[in-house]
């Protein structure tokens, strides 16, 4: 099976280039994921750089651009990919080396969303109660693994990564706005009420299309907007 992989090592390369790799047929097994293939290719060339850890789509390390679409290598069946498989680092993020990108700005925008529960009332000695219906409102929001597939596929984030929070961070914002235990909804909405932070989302929906966990940041952003409008009337 043929691969074409983006290579760049700032220590030795003046410019990035695409390198061809071949995975011999006898190494291709049924049920193999793209990450399994990458690990074998790394044996051919140990300088091939990519992040990976859990191997089953929960740690969010191995996000990359595969045949033009962002996804997690560990849960992409090789059999579904058209050869030569073209692998590139996430678009719109600075490349550190090969398939490894600098995610600092992505994490900074995550922190901008203040992704922690704020509740200043006295702490009970037991759990705070939450009805199953209220808890259900967090489904589809809390499961984000911060892989970055969504934000790295969002044209609005590409153009304004410094000012637009991006789908991943906004999904987190929604997760806390929706949490019945959180008391800072007003504060959160105020921080988001900005032409860039929230409103740079133009509903392109790439985020929802690529999310490897099947989440829907686009809907979450829409919900925040609706809450915002309700609050202003």
């Amino acid at each position, binding site marked *: 099976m043929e691969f074409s992989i983006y290579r760049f090592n700032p220590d030795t390369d003046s410019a990035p280039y695409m390198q061809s790799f071949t995975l011999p047929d006898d190494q291709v097994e049924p049920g193999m994921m793209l990450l399994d293939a990458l690990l074998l290719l790394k044996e051919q060339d140990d300088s091939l750089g990519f992040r990976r*850890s859990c*191997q089953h789509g*929960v740690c969010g390390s191995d996000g990359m651009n595969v045949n033009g679409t962002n996804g997690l290598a560990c849960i992409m069946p090789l059999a579904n990919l058209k050869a030569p498989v073209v692998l590139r680092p996430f678009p719109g993020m600075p490349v550190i*080396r090969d398939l490894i990108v600098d*995610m600092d700005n992505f994490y900074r925008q995550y922190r901008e969303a203040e992704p922690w529960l704020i509740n200043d009332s006295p702490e009970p000695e037991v759990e705070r109660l939450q009805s199953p219906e209220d*808890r259900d409102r967090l489904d589809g929001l809390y499961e984000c693994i*911060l892989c970055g597939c969504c934000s790295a596929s969002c044209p609005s984030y590409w153009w304004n990564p410094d000012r637009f929070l991006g789908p991943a961070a906004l999904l987190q914002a929604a997760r*806390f706005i929706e949490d019945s235990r959180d008391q800072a909804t007003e504060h959160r909405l105020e921080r988001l009420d900005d032409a860039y932070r929230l409103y740079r989302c133009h509903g392109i929906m790439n985020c929802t299309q690529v999310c490897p966990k099947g989440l829907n940041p686009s809907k979450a952003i829409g919900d925040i907007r609706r809450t915002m409008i309700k609050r202003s009337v």
Partner: protein
Amino acid sequence: MKLTTRKFDALIIGAGGAGLRAALQLSNADARVAVVSKVFPTRSHTVAAQGGVNAALANVLPDSWHWHMFDTIKGSDYLGDQDAIEYMCRAAPKVVYELEHFGVPFSRLDNGGIYQRAFGGQSQNFGKEQAARTCAAADRTGHAILHSLYQQNLRARTHFFDEYFAIDLIKDEAGYVLGVVAFEILSGEPIVIEAKTTLIATGGAGQIFRTNTNALSNTGDGMAMALRAGVPLEDMEFVQFHPTGIAGRGMLITEGVRGEGGFLINGEGERFMERYAPQAKDLASRDVVSRAIAIEIREGRGCGKNKDHVLLDMRHLGTDTIMKKLPGIREMSMTFLGVDPIEKPIAVFPTCHYSMGGIPTNRDGQVVVPVKDTPEDPVPGLYAAGEAACVSVHGANRLGGNSLLDILVFGRAAANHILDFLKENRYHRPLPQASVDQALERLSRWERKGDGEAVEPLRRELRKVMEDHCGVFRTAEVMQEGVDKLRVLRERIENAVIRDHTQTFNTARIEAMELENLMDCAMATMCSALGREESRGAHSRVDFPERDDERWLKHSLYSLLDDSMDYKPVRTQPVTVESFPPKKRVY
């Protein structure tokens, strides 16, 4: 070369649940704390924990911390230290309520309380009816906890060194541990992080086995660092094989599936656990269920054309329960097996999952070593918590739902003791240059060029040796052969080379250094297993099939020097209640 040096009150190596829980406690107390992690914190393997965390909240069925304590001791096959177990079970409800206050999105009961499910080895009334003690956020509890802890640390402004690889501990002549030499993965630049206290929270070493449920990053880095600093590892022979890894691949299928009512069937369609554990059936302890599966397959009652696995059936639970309580399992099963568990059972096989052993600590998280007549003398400034540590609350077999509890309780306890230590040790001690140089030597060793074996084939061989020679069933002969093979491998690893010698994000170098760590952990496991001539918990000796309390109710201690074994007594005296003496273990 001028080395960058940073100074903190407290250093934490590892950003999983134990490290982040400790960091939060320290940051909230205004200590200057640094967390070093080779992966971005939310990528730590705590994120993969599924089923939940045990605490006797009694939200669903009657419960008490004392019953939890009994179950844990019985589950440990009486090798767990009863003082630490009492401490953990008593603290459990408090740490779970704290998590809830931190924002963990637990699943909820109709009355708004935290949802709890049944898990293996749990009982009411000291061994009677099944209990429901495992607090869950669907089947993504680890993810929910890790992310919430990270978020709380962001709020508390904990200082993170993300993507830094710790090389070795810094230790002075007097035996104080004074921090770590690490390097920034991005630039390849070494850095000295000085600290008055160092907490090792680097997780387990599941990657020493070929088929495992663990992340590729679970390479026992902290355990190996401790070994090289002269600290022995405790009870490393006790490796948990989780009964339900995805057959042939290893991904974890939570015990919560059986907790919700799922069951195992063999090739004859029989619910075979009824024969092995008449009362608890599919919810017997993990060691019991894993052995039962291995026996079924060995005796020709496996499923599939090679009869090499059994099936986990949850169809009768119904679409609603599966979608609501086990959505992650369904997703994974569809991804890796192409099977929707709503319609078909899943192929499973026992898979290396968890290191019960680790760096010996007391219940304050202090690392303790034998010195002359004292089996447990604290190493000043050094702490360990979580899977990297051995308190020991899991003994010879860990109960499902007790590992998330362990990381929270002892991450927190270690932090509290660190705060006390800091009050009495206000100043940094002088940095011993020799210790720093030694660590740097480990880094520069991989600059060696020329001929030599590559890292990955050696890693593969190591894992194969462990699987073939130290698996579910063990004998002296097979393990002795294993030790010999490991010794040869150790020499070959010393001569291995990498081809990539650049500085920027050099993953080849990281994998090479991880291999060295795996090697040390593998040797500790095999030597400890060869030493223990009895069967207890997860350690099954075909040549010594019975538990032998007279000779072996003691903890193993493996030292890297000469691969030598030593032993220390089990702490059978709890803190406030009566001891549970060893009994025959029936489920």
